[in-house]
C-alpha cells in the first residue's frame, strides 16, 4: 500500500531520516513508535507528500509520489485522511463545517446532503449535537474526535494519525484507541499511527515499526516486537532511559 525506499531527509544539516525503508500493509493498523523528536511526524508527513525527501522513493499504491507534480499529488492525497496531533480544526468554521469541508471541496453533492453526511461521520465518532459548536468550545478529546470525523469524511483508503492520544487522560486515550480500531474495522482502511504511547500501541497495532536514528530498526507484529532482542527496542517498550 505504502512503501518507502531509501528515504533520507535532513533539516539544516541534521539527519532525520537516514536511508529508511518501510512497508505499510493494506488494511492493517501499523503503529510507528520512537522517541520524541526522533522524526516520526516527519516520516508520516512524507507519506502524504507534505514533506519531500532529499532522496529515496515513496510509493502509494505503486505510484512514486516523490516525483509527482502538485495536481497529481493532490489526486493521490484524496485517498488519504489525516488526524493531526492537535486535530488542526479550522478555527473559523464550526464543527459541522469542519467535517463537511472535504465533501464541499471534492464532491458535487447538495449542501443539505453534505451536512447530513457530516452528521453521520460525527455520530460514528460518538459526537451528537455538536455541529454548531466552534472548535474553541471543545475539549482536547472532542477535538480529536472531530478531527477523525473530518479525516474519514471522504471514506479514505488510508488514514494517518499523528500521536492521536498525546495530551489526553487515560480514559480518553482508551476511547480514542477504541475509536481507531472501530473505524478501521468499519472502513477497512489502512491506518498508520505515530505514537510513543506503548500500552496503546500494543492494544491496537497489527504491526509495529520502531524508528531510531533515522532508520526502522524493528518491524513486526506486537508479539514479535515484544520479543525483540534489540536492546534499544526493549528499553523503549519498557520505558528505560538507558
Amino acid at each position, binding site marked *: 500500500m505504502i512503501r518507502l525506499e531509501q528515504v533520507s531527509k535532513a533539516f539544516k544539516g541534521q539527519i532525520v531520516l537516514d536511508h529508511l525503508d518501510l512497508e505499510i500493509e493494506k488494511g492493517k493498523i501499523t503503529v510507528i513508535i520512537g522517541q520524541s523528536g526522533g522524526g516520526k511526524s516527519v516520516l508520516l*508527513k512524507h507519506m*502524504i*507528500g*507534505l514533506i519531500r525527501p532529499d532522496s529515496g522513493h515513496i510509493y502509494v499504491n505503486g505510484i512514486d509520489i516523490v516525483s509527482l507534480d*502538485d495536481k497529481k499529488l*493532490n*489526486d493521490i*492525497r*484524496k485517498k*488519504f*485522511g*489525516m488526524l*493531526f*496531533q*492537535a486535530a*488542526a*480544526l*479550522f*478555527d473559523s468554521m464550526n464543527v459541522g463545517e469542519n467535517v463537511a*469541508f*472535504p465533501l464541499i*471541496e*471534492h464532491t458535487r453533492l447538495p449542501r443539505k446532503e453534505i451536512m447530513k453526511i457530516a452528521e453521520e461521520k460525527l455520530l460514528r465518532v460518538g459526537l451528537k449535537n455538536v455541529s454548531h459548536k466552534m472548535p474553541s468550545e471543545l475539549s482536547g478529546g472532542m477535538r480529536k474526535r472531530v478531527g477523525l470525523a473530518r479525516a474519514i469524511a471522504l471514506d479514505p483508503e488510508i488514514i*494517518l494519525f499523528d500521536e492521536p492520544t498525546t495530551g489526553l487522560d487515560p480514559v480518553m486515550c482508551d476511547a480514542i484507541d477504541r475509536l481507531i480500531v472501530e473505524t478501521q474495522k468499519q472502513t477497512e482502511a489502512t491506518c498508520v499511527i505515530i505514537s510513543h504511547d506503548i500500552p496503546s500501541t500494543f492494544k491496537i497495532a497489527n504491526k509495529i515499526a520502531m524508528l531510531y536514528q533515522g532508520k526502522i530498526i524493528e518491524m513486526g507484529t506486537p508479539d514479535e516486537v515484544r520479543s525483540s532482542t534489540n536492546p534499544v527496542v526493549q528499553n523503549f517498550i519498557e520505558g528505560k532511559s538507558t
Partner: protein
Amino acid sequence: MIYFLELAGRPIKLFVEESGKIVLLFLSALTWLVRPPLRLRLIAKQMEFVGVQSLSVVMITAAFAGMVLALQTYYGFRMFGGESLVGATVALSLTRELGPVFTALMVTGRAGSAMAAELGTMKVTEQVDALYTMSVNPVQYLIVPRILAAVLMVPILTILADFIGIVGGYFVGVHLLGINSGIFMARIVEFVEMDDITNGLIKSAFFGLILSLIGTFKGFYTTGGAEGVGKATTEAVVYASVSILISDYILTALMF
C-alpha cells in the same frame, strides 16, 4: 575579515532570500488566481473584512487629515494672501498622496496585521498542512482571496478617504476659517485633474497588493509557535508600511 564580511552580508542575504520568496508567492498566487474554482464566497468575505470593516478607521483618519491640512495650509498661505488655494491644496494632497498612503497604512495596521496573525496561527497549528492533506491548495484558498480583496478594496476606501478628507478640509476652511465656499470649490475644480485621482487610485491598488502580499507571506512562512506569530505580525506591519512609503515615492516619481 571573512567573518566580518559574512556578518555584513547576512542581512543582505536575508533580504534577497525574503524578496525571492515573496516574488515566488506572488507568482504562485497569480497562477492560482486563474485556476478554477474561483472562490467567490471567500473573496467576498475578505472584501468585507478588508474593506467594510476598515471603513470607520479610514474615514476618521481621512477626515482629520483633511481638517489639519486645511488648518496648516491656511496659516501658511495667509502669509502671502493665498487662502483661496487652501481647497485645491487639500484636494491635491489628498487625491495624490495622503488619501492612498493613509488608507494603505490604516488597512495595513488593521487588516495586514490580521492576515499575518491568522495565517501564522493556521500555520503553527497545522491548519495549513490540513488543507494540503485535503487536496486544497492553501495559496488558492487563503492567499488569493486576501490579495484580491485588498487590491479591490483599498482603492475603493481611498475614493471615500479622498472625499471625506476634502469634506473635512471644507468644514475647517469654510466654516471655521471663513474661506469663501464658492472659491474653495472653484479652486478644487480648477486645479484637480482626473489624472490626480486615477493615479492616486492606481497607487492605492498597488499598496493593497503590497500590504496583502507581505501580510500573507509573513503569516504563511511563520515558524515557532505563539512567539513566531507575534514576530510575523509585527514584521508584516513594519515591512508593509515601509514598503508602501518607499514604493509611494517611486510610483509618484514615475506617474506625476
